[in-house]
């Protein structure tokens, strides 16, 4: 408080001047500074970075192409980890190492893609629910609640089966992505609705209107940027959830057998788990660290962006 009254006087102290120059601290810069101090969040960040690197480079990193049963023809099916096959081979002749690498691409595609679909739907519905009043708002809120409460997995499995014609044509992963996205937007819409109700009452929105800003300017320049932080946090956690759900769907046999994903490999290896543990365990570990990474980043972001935890 004392320092604040000081800056009010004609000449601010040297320290303030230096501060402003050094930091030029936008909210994002401040958040990043605080995020960096969070060891777990930072670890998660590097885990995620590593996964994205693998996903981008997997065609070059992996010794075998996706879904290649080459090892079978080489007479090396069902072998434990070795120099040639670091994660071993499955009974059917898949190189587990290659499958885990290719699966990274598939699972990140589904995890991130489904989340983007959810954000798009959730933002639109949440924004409409927050902006309209009366019956329209109630209906949209009710719709969100329905999607929040119905058990999604059986529904997604049902749809995956119904659209299996598409799966056969090679749309498999994209179909799962769309299903996860279309059924997973309710949390985003709750948050967006609540945040809009909060932000629209803030003085700077009213002040901008009083100075001649148009409705769209206010929505895009002032309201949306100010509700993004909780959306980002939720989205990060949602990616983890979506990856896990994709693995579950594939594990239950509703996935796309023509694309490499962790879930498919686990499913194919689980029967022989006792004798050939390597087939399900390595993709399982890949799933575990991916989900862990996104969750750590989500928690780290939520701490870093929370204005009530100012340092």
């Amino acid at each position, binding site marked *: 408080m004392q320092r604040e009254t000081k800056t009010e006087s*004609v000449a601010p102290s040297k320290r303030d001047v230096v501060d*402003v120059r050094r930091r030029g601290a936008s909210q994002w810069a401040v958040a990043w500074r605080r995020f960096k101090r969070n060891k777990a969040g930072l670890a998660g960040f590097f885990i995620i970075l590593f996964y994205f690197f693998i996903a981008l480079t997997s065609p070059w990193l992996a010794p075998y192409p996706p879904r290649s049963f080459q090892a079978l023809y080489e007479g090396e099916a069902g072998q434990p980890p070795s120099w040639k096959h670091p994660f071993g081979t499955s009974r059917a002749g898949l190189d587990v190492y290659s499958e885990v690498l290719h699966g990274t691409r598939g699972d990140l595609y589904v995890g991130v893609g489904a989340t983007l679909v959810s954000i798009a739907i959730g933002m639109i519905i949440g924004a409409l629910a927050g902006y309209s009043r009366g019956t329209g708002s109630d209906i949209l809120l009710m719709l969100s609640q329905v999607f929040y409460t119905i058990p999604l997995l059986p529904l997604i499995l049902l749809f995956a089966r119904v659209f299996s014609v598409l799966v056969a044509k090679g749309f498999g992963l994209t179909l799962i992505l769309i299903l996860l996205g279309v059924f997973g937007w309710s949390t985003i819409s709750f948050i967006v609705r609540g945040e809009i109700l909060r932000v629209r*009452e803030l*003085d700077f929105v009213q002040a901008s209107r009083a*100075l001649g800003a148009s409705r769209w300017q206010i929505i895009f320049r002032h309201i949306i940027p100010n509700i993004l932080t909780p959306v980002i946090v939720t989205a990060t956690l949602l990616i983890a959830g979506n990856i896990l759900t994709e693995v579950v769907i594939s594990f239950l046999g509703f996935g796309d057998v023509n694309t490499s994903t962790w879930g498919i490999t686990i499913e194919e290896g689980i029967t022989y788990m006792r004798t050939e543990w390597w087939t399900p365990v390595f993709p399982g570990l890949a799933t575990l660290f991916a989900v862990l990474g996104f969750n750590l980043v989500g928690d780290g972001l939520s701490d870093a962006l929370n204005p009530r935890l100012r340092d």
Partner: protein
Amino acid sequence: METLLNVKGLKTYFFTEAGVVKAVDGVDFQVGKDEAVGLVGESGSGKTVTGLSVLRIVPRPGRILAGTIMFEGEDLLAKSEEEMRRIRGAKIAMTFQDPTTSLDPLYTIGNQLVEVIREHDKELSKKEALEQAMKLLEMVGISEPELRIRAYPHELSGGMKQRIAIARALASRPILLFADEPTTNLDVTVQAQVLELLEELREKLKMSLVMITHDMGIIAETTQRVQVLYAGMVAEVAETRSIFKRPRHPYTEALLQAVPRIDHRKELKVIPGNIPNLIDPPSGCRFHPRCPYAKEICWKKIPTLNPVDDDHLVACHLWQDLSLTGA
């Protein structure tokens, strides 16, 4: 004096689920050219809503139901939303109570000033607008504007933020400024500075000022004329000097006696009770349940504004019989 703003019979109601809140219920209100007018009353008396109504930015579920708002000879209520948008900021501007939330936390000070400057002068390049922003910061007494212009709101003190909010409101040189409780959330020393600044700018920019406040002290310092609102209706209108010397409405008297004074060491008088429920306001004079002088007529009949003299009006049945004490 030439009249700049002339509001007549303004009614702004809020249609809430609990019922219709008659926030402003038939208010007349004038502002002259270069004049500083005070709008005073407790929270919920309708002073802020009056300001919002003039700019036509009453938030939903509020609506302006009746009245005329003549500004420079034209009725603002008859204008289209697009026409109003060009008046807001350029001709009439408003600053808001809480300096901590009246600036968008995501943008630099410069960015937010440029936004308003270019809104009303689209020809201007970004660089020219930034130069103007710099001049605005100097004008409102911000030291080292070249540094502050790159700062974010959270890096500044409350007083500075309020100065910048004022700079933003004045960016397009409006001729009428509504200042809604500009000092409520500031330290006492900073309060005085901000009031001084407003007074100085009003004279320099030849601007009319409407000071919205609940503080009679601020009214005394900054205004020439004052309008006392109670529960959405006008209680008294007069020159500031004469209202302080001799208030005619019991509510004004009560407001004056609620101001702490160092020279009389007597107990501070508070006004008993609360501002009435505006969904179902009291019958007759809305102040009668709290008024120490109330008589039968007060709850039977709504008082009209009676002229005490040329520029002193009071809405009280008993004003001729009462002898009220001023400050």
